[in-house]
């Protein structure tokens, strides 16, 4: 049985989804007959406890740690590294280090007792390793105790001298998770996986839409794939590109209608049209709390460009 260890659930998302792993006895374990996923929690203490529990209970033959790490020596964001040796530092460096079973690995990692936020920390820590995390040393230590080989793949989520925004990392967790998944499962099996490996973050309903649109058109989307946008933004842009390429008229109409509605919406009055654009009705929802709201609604309705919107729905792009 292989054990995949992640500090946070966000980092494990793609693996849980792609490998179809279900919750497994404990709230920090997921798995099937072949693979277990341990969400160890952050830091040495949490990791030691949960991993020891898991290794004591399940016949694990190999441990693979996957997760984000900070760059101490200028490694590129989003680059993935297999870890050679892990060190530990808790106010003072620990003597003990551990080496992974990946003989081709060439990057070292240091597990630090807190999040690295100061450039002073970075300078000091970079003497020991190129990457910094908060759990790997515990994983390696417990693994040694249980005589189970381990490997670790880290994706660079941030440069430690930069201001780190945890919210950013949290939002990108799925993107990181996908990259790690594709790195450790390198054969993209279909269009969606291929897109995901290029940084697109695709929900199930978006996947269905994209697959359908790709049957109709195959535009060049490399500029989107190579852009700095988030995975979510990339996917939205890709869908827009595909829709425009397949039906430029309806695409333009949608854009214009959206603009008109936006210009007329207010905090209390909201105009909407049929999503399919089949019905020419416009729906108005308004919150009326006092006479002023009534007056505002009347004024809004009087200037609302109903005819223009209905003409647009009939393809009149003049």
């Amino acid at each position: 049985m292989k054990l995949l260890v992640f500090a946070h659930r966000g980092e494990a998302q793609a693996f849980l989804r792609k490998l179809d792993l279900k919750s497994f006895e404990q709230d920090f374990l997921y798995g099937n007959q072949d693979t277990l996923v341990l969400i160890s929690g952050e830091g040495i203490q949490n990791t030691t406890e949960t991993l020891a529990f898991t290794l004591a209970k399940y016949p694990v033959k190999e441990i693979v740690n996957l997760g984000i790490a900070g760059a101490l020596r200028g490694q590129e964001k989003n680059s993935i590294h297999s870890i050679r040796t892990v060190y530990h530092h808790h106010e003072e460096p620990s003597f003990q280090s551990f080496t992974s079973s990946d003989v081709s690995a060439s990057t070292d990692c240091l597990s630090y007792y807190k999040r690295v936020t100061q450039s002073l920390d970075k300078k000091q820590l970079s003497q020991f390793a190129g990457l910094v995390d908060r759990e790997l040393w515990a994983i390696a230590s417990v693994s040694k105790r249980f005589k189970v080989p381990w490997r670790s793949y880290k994706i660079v989520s941030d440069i430690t001298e930069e201001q780190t925004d945890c919210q950013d990392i949290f939002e990108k967790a799925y993107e990181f998770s996908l990259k790690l998944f594709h790195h450790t499962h390198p054969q993209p099996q279909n269009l969606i996986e291929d897109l995901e490996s290029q940084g697109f973050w695709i929900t199930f309903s978006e996947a269905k839409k994209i697959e359908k649109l790709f049957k109709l058109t195959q535009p060049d989307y490399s500029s989107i794939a190579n852009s700095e946008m988030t995975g979510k933004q990339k996917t939205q842009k890709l869908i827009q590109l595909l829709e425009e390429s397949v039906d430029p008229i309806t695409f333009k109409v949608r854009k214009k209608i959206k603009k008109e509605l936006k210009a007329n919406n207010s905090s209390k009055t909201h105009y909407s049209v049929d999503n399919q654009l089949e019905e020419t009705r416009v729906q108005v929802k308004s919150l009326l709390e006092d006479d002023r709201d009534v007056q505002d609604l009347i004024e809004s309705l009087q200037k609302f460009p109903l005819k223009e919107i209905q003409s647009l729905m009939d393809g009149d792009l003049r």
Partner: protein
Amino acid sequence: MFQNIYVESQVRDQKYTQDILNFFSEVPTTEITAIEDHFGKVKKPYLHKRTDLNLFLGKKKGQLIKEAPQAYGTQTGKHYYFIHAYNCIYECEYCFLQGYFHSPDIVLFTNHDEIINEMKALIDGETWFHAGEFSDSLALSHITKEWGQYFDFFRNHPEAKLELRSKSSNIKSLLELEPLGNVVVTFSLADEENSKKYDRKTPPLRARLKAIRQLVDKGFRIGIHLDPIIYSEDLVGRYGKMIDELSEVLPDTSLEYISIGVVRYTKDVYRQVELNYPDSDITKQPLQKSFDDKVRYARPLRGWILSNVEKLLSQHYSAEKIYRCME
């Protein structure tokens, strides 16, 4: 053309039947009791029509004439379509017939007398009878020669109107008849590129335009169906060219009406199209499920197509003769 002919015993000796059997004298013929015992009894794949097409001859039972759906024809009068045949020798990729019957075999009904009697009973002011709903009304007309009988009827009933719908250029049998003011021969046309691409086995656009010119010269009233229009990036240019060419052979004075409509399918037909023509560009059109459960373009694209084609047509034809079909 046909592998076998199956003929109902009860119609075998009719002159109409005999003329057809004589034309196909080399095709093996089998006598049967009733078409419905054989036709569509097993699901015969649509594309077997390419290699294994049979002909059935017999009497149409049940309803011979049906009320046409709304927006089927012009805005005025009552509209009916009559069923004198099933299926078509052509193979248009978008054709609804591929999902309609369980067999592509051709059925020609011989009881035209009964159809005409039903027509007589239905006439009530301006009453239209459309031929060609389930078959092409002219494609085999040089063999079937049924229209003379109908012309005799419509000559005596000027308030009734007959429409013969076709994608054919086969007007040989019509040219033997005297044109009538209440009989309209209508041609389905598409731009040349789409016609070549999707209207398999139909005569080329130029042949249809030539047929229109011949009928106009003889004094026939002509109708045009620009339906189904299939979207392409240069649709305006393509249709502009085709409409210019049409205007050279069809003056406004000979035109009865022009209907325009965009491609649409029921879900079942769409599935058949995907099955029969998986590599065709027609399955790469931006279609979606619409208000009536049919699969069609989004409303803005439909509106854009129709208004642009209307604009092109109005450069040559009276606006009141142009109507939108099934919209």
